[in-house]
């Protein structure tokens, strides 16, 4: 589903990514680990062009989204992202946070469709009986879009057990609750893949569990996920591919059993010996 070919990123003279190659298939759960400064977060942020790559290609569903000419907003709809600091919209209630993008973007598509139809109607005035074009079908309206998004949002909230928090502002939620809302906010777009940028690093140890449980549930449902994390236990248990990055390159990529059981690269051995005491 995602083909990363020779991805490079540098900030000025500082080369952060030096040619990353990886293929991610549908249903894959890829965990990226590595020391800080190794470029793993930058790699993740390049995948949805939050940072514009300076070289290489990212083929997502057949389109090279690293190309600056591509309308990245269209592709980001299919690529959720979860941040270390949650980044819930502070001026919106929980349910508004979840509904905002689906409703806005669906209404935007609806407006575009209506505009196209208006144009067809106008040009039809100057055409003969047979040359007239058919109008594009419009199946929905604003109220229906809103109702559907609301229903979806409520069922997602129910799934994480926060349906009673639907109408509160994010500032009243705990860290773990915020992160779970952030995860279902990206789920509400029905993405093909979700990128997790250290989703548990800013949480109390007590709250890490609830977020990881939700992520495990998602993995169980077959969601494609790419996760940058320091949670080795989670990587061992859930991932089907673990990647070790250092100094902007992938040093090792293997299934978790092999990755943790029989690491090959000396840098990875050193890293694991320090982390897994």
């Amino acid at each position: 589903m995602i083909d990363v070919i020779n991805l490079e990123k540098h900030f000025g003279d500082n080369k952060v990514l030096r040619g990353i190659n990886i293929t991610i298939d549908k249903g894959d759960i890829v965990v990226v680990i590595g020391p800080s400064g190794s470029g793993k977060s930058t790699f993740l942020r390049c995948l949805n062009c939050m940072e514009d790559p300076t070289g290489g290609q990212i083929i997502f569903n057949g389109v090279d989204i690293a190309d600056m000419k591509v309308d990245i907003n269209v592709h980001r709809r299919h690529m959720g992202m979860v941040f270390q600091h949650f980044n819930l919209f502070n001026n919106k209630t929980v349910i508004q946070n979840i509904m905002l993008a689906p409703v806005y973007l669906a209404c935007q598509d609806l407006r575009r469709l209506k505009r196209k139809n208006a144009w067809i109607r106008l040009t039809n005035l100057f055409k003969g009986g047979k040359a007239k074009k058919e109008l594009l079908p419009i199946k929905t309206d604003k109220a229906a879009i809103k109702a559907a998004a609301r229903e979806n949002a409520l069922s997602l909230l129910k799934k994480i057990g926060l349906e009673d928090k639907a109408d509160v502002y994010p500032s009243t939620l705990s860290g773990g609750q915020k992160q779970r809302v952030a995860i279902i906010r990206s789920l509400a777009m029905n993405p093909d893949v979700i990128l997790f940028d250290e989703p548990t690093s800013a949480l109390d140890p007590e709250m890490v569990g609830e977020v990881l449980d939700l992520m495990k549930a998602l993995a169980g449902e077959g969601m494609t996920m790419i996760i940058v994390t320091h949670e080795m236990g989670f990587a061992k248990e859930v991932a089907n591919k673990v990647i070790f990055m250092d100094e902007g390159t992938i040093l090792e990529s293997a299934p978790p059993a092999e990755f943790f059981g029989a690491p090959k690269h000396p840098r990875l051995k050193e890293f694991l010996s320090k982390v897994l005491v």
Partner: protein
Amino acid sequence: MGNFPQKVDRFIESFIAQNGYVRVLEGLKNTLFIAVLGLIIGILIGTLIAAVRVIPKYKTLPRVLNGFCSFYVGLFRGTPIVVQLLVFYYVMLPLMGIRMTGVAVSVLVFGLNSGAYISEIMRSGILSVDLGQMEAGRAVGLSFGTTMMKIVIPQAVKNILPTLGNEFIALIKETSVVSFVGAADLYVAFNYMGSNTYEFMVPYLVMAVIYILLVLIISLGIKLMERSLRKSDRRH
């Protein structure tokens, strides 16, 4: 000060019996009209400029727009408001062959002028909103402009409301120079009453009191507005 009561009597007579209050009300209306409309125009222009100035500048168009906005802000912050009024009324409009009343020109100039100041206020407001808010909006597929309008600017406005209130108060007080282009504001009304009776002391005193009352009422309004905008915060 011995004849102060007589001066007050004189003022009351000219205020009520000689229809001075009609002029004062007219002046008050013009003052508020210029300040409020100027502020609205200023907020629109200021928000637009601030948004342009925070667009990432990889491409040519944002760079050109940014240059233009810097020029605009520099121009309007670099000249006194009286000079701008005079230049618009006596230079620009005749050159373009447009006829406008003094009040209309004042609204235009005060709008353009406060737009330059508000753009900087608004920019600091936008920069005060965590970058993560913009990233989160972009990550779900909203465009830069949509995220700005729906997420960042509402939060920015909340942060800058006290400063914006300051700007409105300054604007109200600055309108006292619009008589330069023949607009009849509060100052004109009281000045007229003073010249009629050859007594300026009481009219100008009353004028000062009216300005203070205006500002107090506005500060109260801002306070109430701030409170309602702070709903999503824990700081009540």
